[in-house]
């Protein structure tokens, strides 16, 4: 009889809390979005599953000794997992389009305006009663505008781990929503004539230039912004392995085994941060709001920068590609291509958009470094 009581006491039903239930529904919702709507499934499926697991009462998977806790404390709190993902992303990134047209870096810079404007916005939200963001939290939220998952996770693990779950969910959700969020802004800020601009074909880039590029970025980082060195350094390491051509087996391991395994672990560990106490707050609403704000502002800033460049320079660029400066590789570049085709059936912008797209990755890593330096 006592045994049955014990058994009953260890059922989930007996110790169900409303908050945990809601969070499990949130986890299932993320899984639904990942599977049915293909919302960044590589991350949102593990995150959603981690969210369900962490909220199962009595299982203690996110308490000391639990498997999710082990993954979080050894891989996320130390920054190891997001940096390894960034290493793999570096090994997967081809900078040819950017090297062929380095002015694209300006678009990647402009699109980071979303980050810094959101920083101010987050602090402004403090005027709303019940919301209280420190400058560290505001910085971690603002980086959502960087549209780069590992950067966002790394920065919030360093500046505001208590918000990490919400920030990661917001970052990946908005990256998945790029095809919905960006087009209206892109059309609003451009004329049909501008959208029809065809761009000149890109010159090929020498192998030597592609090898020296990551080293050059690294040296610039070392001289100007050492706080960005972990992110940019690992990224450049991956890219150098790729381009050097002498460590093919390591480069392939970084692009496949490493990134796949770490993605599984990172997703589960990040999902495990989605507990009722930390997620079901007014702050989370603020984060979701600010994230959308950041994405839209970054898109607008990229497009407007492209228009500004057309005023100054003779070689015209299609302002649509400015929107790819937020990164969200390669989704944003695809959206640009699609909008270009809408304007003119023969206007293929994909390759041209890859330049600002990868520039945006560097841009948001630089912005993260600055936030670590100034708000850290």
């Amino acid at each position, binding site marked *: 009889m006592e045994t049955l009581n014990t058994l009953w006491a260890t059922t989930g039903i007996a110790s169900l809390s409303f908050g945990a239930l809601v969070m499990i529904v949130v986890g299932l919702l993320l899984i639904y979005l990942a599977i049915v709507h293909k919302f960044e499934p590589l991350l949102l499926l593990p995150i959603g599953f981690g969210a369900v697991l962490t909220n199962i009462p009595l299982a203690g998977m996110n308490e000391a000794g639990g498997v999710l806790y082990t993954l979080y404390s050894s891989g996320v709190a130390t920054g190891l997992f997001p940096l390894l993902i960034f290493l793999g992303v570096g090994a997967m990134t081809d900078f040819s389009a950017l090297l062929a047209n*380095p002015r694209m870096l300006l678009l990647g810079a402009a699109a980071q305006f979303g980050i*810094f404007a959101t920083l101010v916005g987050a*602090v402004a939200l403090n005027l709303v009663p019940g919301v209280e963001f420190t*400058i560290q939290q505001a910085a971690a939220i603002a980086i959502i505008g960087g549209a780069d998952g590992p950067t966002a996770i790394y920065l919030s693990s360093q500046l505001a781990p208590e918000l990490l779950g919400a920030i990661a969910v917001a970052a990946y959700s908005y990256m998945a929503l790029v095809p919905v969020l960006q087009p209206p802004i892109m059309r609003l800020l451009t004329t049909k004539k501008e959208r029809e601009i065809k761009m000149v074909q890109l010159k090929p880039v*020498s192998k030597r*230039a592609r090898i020296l590029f990551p080293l050059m970025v690294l040296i*610039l980082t070392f001289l100007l*912004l050492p706080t960005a060195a972990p992110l940019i350094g690992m990224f450049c390491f991956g890219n150098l392995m790729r381009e050097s051509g002498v460590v093919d087996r390591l480069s392939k391991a970084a692009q496949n085994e490493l990134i796949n395994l770490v993605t599984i672990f990172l997703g589960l560990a990040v999902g495990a941060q989605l507990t009722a106490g930390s997620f079901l707050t007014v702050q989370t609403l603020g984060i979701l709001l600010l994230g959308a704000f950041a994405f839209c502002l970054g898109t607008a800033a990229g497009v407007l920068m492209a228009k500004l460049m057309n005023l100054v320079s003779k070689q015209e660029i299609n302002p649509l590609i400015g929107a790819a400066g937020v990164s969200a590789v390669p989704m944003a570049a695809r959206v640009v291509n699609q909008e270009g085709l809408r304007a003119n059936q023969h206007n293929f912008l994909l390759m041209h958009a890859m330049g600002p797209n990868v520039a945006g990755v560097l841009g948001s890593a630089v912005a993260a470094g600055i936030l670590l330096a100034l*708000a850290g």
Partner: protein
Amino acid sequence: MSDLFADTFEIMLAGMGGVFIFLILLTFAVGLLTKLCPEITAPKGGVDAQTPAKETPNVASSDNASAAAKLAAVTVAVQKYRQARGSAADQQE
């Protein structure tokens, strides 16, 4: 509060400035880099060399090309077959 606001505003300006300085310097550096390391014209030849190979399937009826392709096919297939048999043999050993 307004202090925090002012600070944040300053971070915004310094941040956007920093991002632009970094990436503008990088723009010039890349310009210099691609000027110093130009793409040699060889790759065009490389592309030429590749073109006939790419067309091979389409001209499979033309005699020489198809013979070469068949030889390649046979070689690959036999190698595959031998590998497969070899590893199977290993496991049966």
